[in-house]
């Protein structure tokens, strides 16, 4: 064996191990003191600055695990009673509803719930909405005259929309929208609409970002998405973005990103403080100024780029009914969308 040869490989491996150990110690170095663990389905881009601010102001350490909302919820279910999580932040009401049904969330105090309009929280009080997301039609203004856009999403199944529309059937927000359709219009109407849209060769995308890119490139003319992606993308871009949002006049579904406290939380009082902080005016302003969502606490105006919530004809829907996902999934499978 050539010693030098074996040494250079050893050196690389040893360096990696040392780096790793430094990193391990670094992570383990977190001081003591009060702390909570948050499982967040919201990505770091959408909330970390707020959490940093909370830590600075209160001295409470917040350990955040980021992941996809549904995967986080599945993880919490799998962890069972031993879950280290105190708070679950979700991107949609469906996942919160699923945890509430599995009896994993603890009821929140009434004064905390009252900060938010009743339609944006769980009636049993197990979760509360933090920010609102409107379901809109995003479109390419060069290819569609805004006046030609329908007042109801249902109208997208008219023949002249054939092959021009995109949606994301695997996406939780789309599934919530279909649930809303089922609840408000009835199961059969929802099925007819989905079948019609599918027959019209509506394109299925993996997620909202992919739809936006497809509309921007002219691959499709319109897509069903949440409203804020457009603004997030526009802020990142230096040039003008050839996309606009259309809020159907006949009714907009406003879904929420929300939070709940786990029944097994080790520090429920700190978790409570954390939720109150997220419903505080500065946090609500952050949601609307930085992530372009709707603030849900009364008296806080949404970002000026957004049409005010009260101007929107919102669908009359109890968001808790959105947790009836199973029938929605079965419906989507029946019409071969999933």
């Amino acid at each position, binding site marked *: 064996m050539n010693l030098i040869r074996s040494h250079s490989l050893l050196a690389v491996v040893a360096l990696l191990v040392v780096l790793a150990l430094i990193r*391990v110690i670094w992570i383990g170095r977190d001081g003591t003191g009060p702390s909570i663990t948050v499982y967040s389905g919201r990505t770091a*881009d959408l909330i970390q600055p707020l959490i940093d601010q909370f830590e600075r102001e209160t001295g409470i350490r917040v350990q*955040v695990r980021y992941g996809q909302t549904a995967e986080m919820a599945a993880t919490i279910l799998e962890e069972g009673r031993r*879950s280290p999580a105190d708070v679950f932040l979700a991107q949609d009401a469906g996942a919160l509803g*699923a945890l509430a049904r599995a009896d994993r969330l603890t009821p929140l105090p009434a004064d905390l719930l009252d900060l938010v309009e009743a339609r944006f929280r769980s009636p049993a009080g197990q979760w509360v909405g933090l920010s609102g997301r409107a379901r809109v039609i995003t479109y390419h203004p060069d290819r569609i005259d805004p006046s030609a856009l329908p007042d109801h999403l249902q109208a997208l199944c008219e023949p002249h929309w054939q092959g021009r529309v995109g949606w994301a059937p*695997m996406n*939780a927000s789309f*599934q919530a929208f279909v649930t809303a359709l089922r609840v408000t219009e009835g199961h059969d109407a929802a099925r007819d609409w989905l079948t019609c849209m599918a027959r019209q060769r509506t394109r299925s995308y993996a997620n909202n970002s992919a739809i936006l890119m497809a509309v921007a490139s*002219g691959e499709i003319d319109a897509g069903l998405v949440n409203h804020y992606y457009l603004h997030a993308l526009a802020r*990142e871009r230096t040039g003008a973005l050839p996309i606009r949002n259309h809020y159907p006049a006949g009714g907009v579904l406003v879904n929420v990103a929300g939070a709940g406290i786990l029944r097994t939380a080790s520090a429920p009082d700190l978790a409570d403080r954390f939720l109150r902080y997220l419903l505080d005016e500065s946090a609500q302003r952050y949601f609307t100024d930085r992530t372009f969502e709707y603030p849900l606490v009364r008296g806080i105006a949404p970002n000026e780029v957004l049409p005010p919530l009260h101007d929107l004809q919102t669908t009359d829907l109890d968001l808790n009914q959105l947790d009836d996902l199973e029938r929605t999934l079965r419906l989507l499978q029946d019409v071969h969308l999933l």
Partner: protein
Amino acid sequence: MFISCSAVDMGTRSATTRSAPVQAFASPPPPAPRRFRDPGQVPLWLRLSALFVALLCLLPVLYLVLRGAEIGSDLWSILFRGRTARIFLNSVLLTLTVTASATAIGVLLAWLTVRTDLPHRRFWSILTCLPIVLPSYVGAFALIATLGPNGALQHLLSVWGVTQLPSIYGFFGAWLALTLFTYPYVQLSVRAGLRGLDPSMEEAARSLGRSNLSAFRRVTLPHLQPAIVAGALLVALYTLSDFGAVSLLQFDAFTRAIYVHYTGALDRSAAAILALLLVVLTLGILTMEYRLRGRSRYYRVSAGAARRQQPMPLGVWKVPALMFCGLLVFLALGIPLLVTGYWLIQDGASVNVLRETVTITLNSVAAAGLASAACVLAALPIVVYAVRFPDRHSRWMERCVYIAHGLPGIVVALALVFFGIRFVPALYQTWAMLILAYVILFIPLALGNLRATLMQISPRIEEASRMLGKSARSTLSQITVPLLRPGLLAGLALVFLTCMKELPATLILGPTGFPTLATRIWSATEEAYFARAAAPALILVAVSAISMWIILRQEERVS
């Protein structure tokens, strides 16, 4: 560094140099696996450590069985609805085609960059292997942006009046993306195989009147069979377990259905049933692989030429060969890099991003480095057992180790959540758990290479060491492992590069507050903050390129 050599064993299927011991429990009939020692003599420590690793790798299956058992009456409706059959066939079709094309490309590239006089071979070696580091969701996004409807290519072609391209979505796109991002598995495996070959074999064939091509086909290729099959197996299982590419490219594969059950209704039982079907599919692939693997001897039986292979002159084929390499690098690496570069240009807040990126890079490198060392260590007992003492048990252990590789990451991650928090809560959400997940997911990457290399090492050397009084263990550490070096390196490289891009297990099992390059890229693309995904994506490629360079250099020194 070369030990024994020469007298050629041209892929004979017969040569049994020693009578095999009686097979008391002979499983599949012909041709019986060769035995070099009585199976009764498998050292206990070897048997136990191999068994331990194999059982660890079965944890996800145990989890699936436990969850699947809760399903109740829905079982039949899930198993026998038309959709299940359709996605099953879709996945089979995709796996077969991707494996075939990736294998062809991988073998050709390995041969070009190892055995021919292709100009700048090391440069091409690194570049052509690099696509392996791209997370498939990034690659797929990039392909859509360039080759998709109204993408960059169509804009270029519109000058010549081309208004519509064949659709990138569906089978074609998924096949293209997965082929482009998996062929390096075959290439890296075959490289190691080619380097272990004795050049005198091909020379003998040529001196006996064979043309270059025919010598390659008749002599080299059969000897590479274990390496090729090992690489192809990895491609097949990657394709089966991939979610990113098939979902973005809108191909209805098995993993998509599994994700729907997890993410939609959080229906873990239905997801488990589908995942168990995937296990069945994986077992089928493993059986096929076992048949194709070949049972010949691949090592030299006596001392011979310890020298470098003469590169084969490409002649008039040099330009087409360069164009082929160039085209592949452009498609598999150039396009994703151009697209991410374009994202980066649009980024305003880059200073902040950069500072944060240093920590993230350190996280990624440290986790992937530890995981690759752990994978190689865990793979060693299995490989030595399976190659040196092949018996019914070793064959099943090998299969166990591969099963989790065919499962989507989320399944393995949730399985470890389930077992981790119940039985080793002290390790839950620590590095140990994450590394364990990586080992279970990626041990086959180390295993395939080690196995192919070990098969090229004559057991006579080990026997000589034993006869000279060394124990089995010191023979392993002083003779076998040093000789295994090319395979060890290739294994380390593969695991390292693959861990760097792993997403679901990293998200679910990593220590809390542990962003890596892959999780950063994912969270940015998820919210359409593409510019923020660019820096980590480019760093991922850069770090991987450096490690690839180190490893290829080591590999060249070794031979």
